[in-house]
């Protein structure tokens, strides 16, 4: 398939100064508008000429979408806040270090300087069949090229695959789920606030999107309540190249301990399915249990129940099991097992 690289198709560049103006423009160009945050995902699509929107709504001029603000109960992060700012923000580092840690391992420093939290959680999948412009399910077609006997699917889903086996590539998403964050969305009907895990959607619901944003919707902020501030956090990302890569899998957890036992916990993984998965069964199973390798082992087994490997990604099952084990038992105690 001939692809013209590095020459973007012509589009109308719209640069609103407020959320209301952006929403108005998105509504005006319904179906033909592309929302541009940091541009790291967008420019791939545009330069490869896979996506050819008639209008691009650039959010970089909207000040109200930027920055980290303290609220009565936690913090609010504007959707256009850069990942670097999140990594360096003192309150995030002090109380919600899970998020700063997750943001710190996103791609490279240059990308973190430009990439935004809103873009990171809303980015599209990295499945190369899809990104090459092939007419797969996610692109509106009727086949998944990755889920075929010859498909290259080392990075693809082991859980909740439904026709499409692409995975969500966000590093910050599982951290936000573990922190019980709320996503603030501006829709044509007004403001809508959803739990972090409900922002993401699997192919069984919508095979063409990774999140619930519809045409005209705008993610404006992410609110993190103080509920899990200062908890014991764990984040680990496994990738092919430690210097700069998308996750093969990552895990994020927040725990409160009491006398060495897990009082309560939230844990999520990403890279295993088309949406980041909150592991509620694990959270329930480990409540009241000691935070050690044995509990981690049990939790790891529970986490991968129902996993179905593809031709080349069976390694993800022990990988996920071990990540969950380490999130509970700690890196030192919970030794890697195959």
């Amino acid at each position, binding site marked *: 398939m001939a692809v013209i690289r590095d020459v973007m198709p012509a589009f109308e560049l719209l640069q609103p100064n407020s959320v209301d103006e952006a929403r108005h423009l998105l509504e005006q160009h319904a179906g033909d508008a592309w929302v541009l945050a940091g541009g790291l995902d967008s420019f791939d699509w545009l330069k490869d000429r896979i996506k050819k929107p008639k209008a691009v709504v650039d959010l970089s001029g909207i000040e109200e979408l930027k920055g980290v603000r303290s609220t009565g109960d936690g913090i609010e992060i504007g959707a256009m806040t850069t990942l670097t700012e999140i990594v360096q923000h003192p309150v995030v580092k002090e109380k919600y270090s899970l998020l700063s840690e997750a943001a710190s391992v996103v791609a490279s420093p240059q990308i973190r300087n430009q990439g935004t939290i809103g873009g990171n959680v809303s980015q599209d999948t990295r499945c190369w069949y899809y990104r090459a412009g*092939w007419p797969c399910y996610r692109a509106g077609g009727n086949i998944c090229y990755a889920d075929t006997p010859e498909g290259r699917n080392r990075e693809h889903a082991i859980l909740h695959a439904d026709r499409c086996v692409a995975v969500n590539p966000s590093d910050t998403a599982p951290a936000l789920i573990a922190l019980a964050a709320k996503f603030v969305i501006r829709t044509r009907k007004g403001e809508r606030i959803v739990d972090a895990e409900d922002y993401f959607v699997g192919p069984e*619901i919508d095979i063409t999107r990774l999140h619930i944003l519809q045409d005209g919707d705008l993610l404006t902020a992410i609110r993190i309540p103080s509920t899990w501030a200062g908890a014991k956090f764990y984040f680990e990302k496994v990738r092919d190249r430690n210097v700069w890569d998308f996750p093969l899998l990552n895990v994020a957890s927040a725990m409160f301990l009491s006398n060495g036992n897990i009082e309560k916990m939230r844990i999520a993984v990403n890279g295993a399915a088309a949406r980041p998965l909150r592991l509620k069964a694990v959270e329930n199973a480990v409540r009241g249990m000691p935070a050690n390798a044995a509990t981690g082992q049990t939790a790891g087994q529970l986490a991968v129940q129902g996993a179905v490997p593809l031709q080349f990604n069976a390694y993800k099952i022990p990988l996920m099991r071990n990540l969950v084990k380490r999130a509970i038992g700690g890196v030192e105690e919970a030794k890697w097992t195959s």
Partner: protein
Amino acid sequence: MDFLKSPIQWATDPWGKVVPIHIAWFLIWVAAIAGLLFLIVHATYVRYFAKPRQFAAEDDVRATSAIPDRVPRHSLVARVFHWIMALAMLTLLFTAFLPKIGWQFPWVTYHWIAGIVLTASILFHVFHASFWLDFWSIWPDRIDMTDASYRMLRFLGRSAPAPRKFAKYPLENKLYHGVIILAGLSAIITGVFMMFRVRTGILPRNPYLFSDMTWGMMYVLHGLAGVGLIALVTVHIYFAIRPEKLPITKSMVFGWMSRDFYLEEHDPRRWIVGPESSSPNSGRTEA
């Protein structure tokens, strides 16, 4: 304007061939509107323009004297089949098209399970109708065609004999049954093959069973049959709730229709109801 766009969506496959991938989804609305338009036009015609129906010759008194008060029309087995099929068909249509018009839910599993139920019930129906019912009663015969031509001539104001009363099923019923067979079989056969593309645990996944072109045509045919069924089911439900058709609908619930309705609509010589078939569950009387 969506209506001016191609009714088929095309894409370029990895080998550079342009192949169909499925129907354009605006056809959902085309089918729904066509179904609604039909019922508006029909209801208006019946209400304001239709003349009272006239049938040829009076019934033979000897033939009608043995007709019971409750004329058995559908056996219990046939009724159970009909309602299972109806439930499966509605499930298939809702699960197929609601997500396309914005009501999102995990539809695929419900869809193929309903498809299996429909397929099984239709296989049963073919077997049951072939060996236990009057298989030919649902197919048009020469009298139907002759009477249809009479009705058409009279509708156009030309001179023609009055048509006879109906056999067990009016010609419209028989033609509808034929169209449903075409649409239903198209959807079912393509649907069974499409199950090779999803994880069902029943059939082994094999997305390369056919070429991209064949798969594409299969998806298009499945889609066309599906949207066609939107219109057909709309029309079917419309007729089922029309006041003059309610006795027929009730017979699909209770199994029988009244003697009066039978004599008003049906020709006892063409649909023979004798004392031996007084029970709705008795033998070869229906399809």
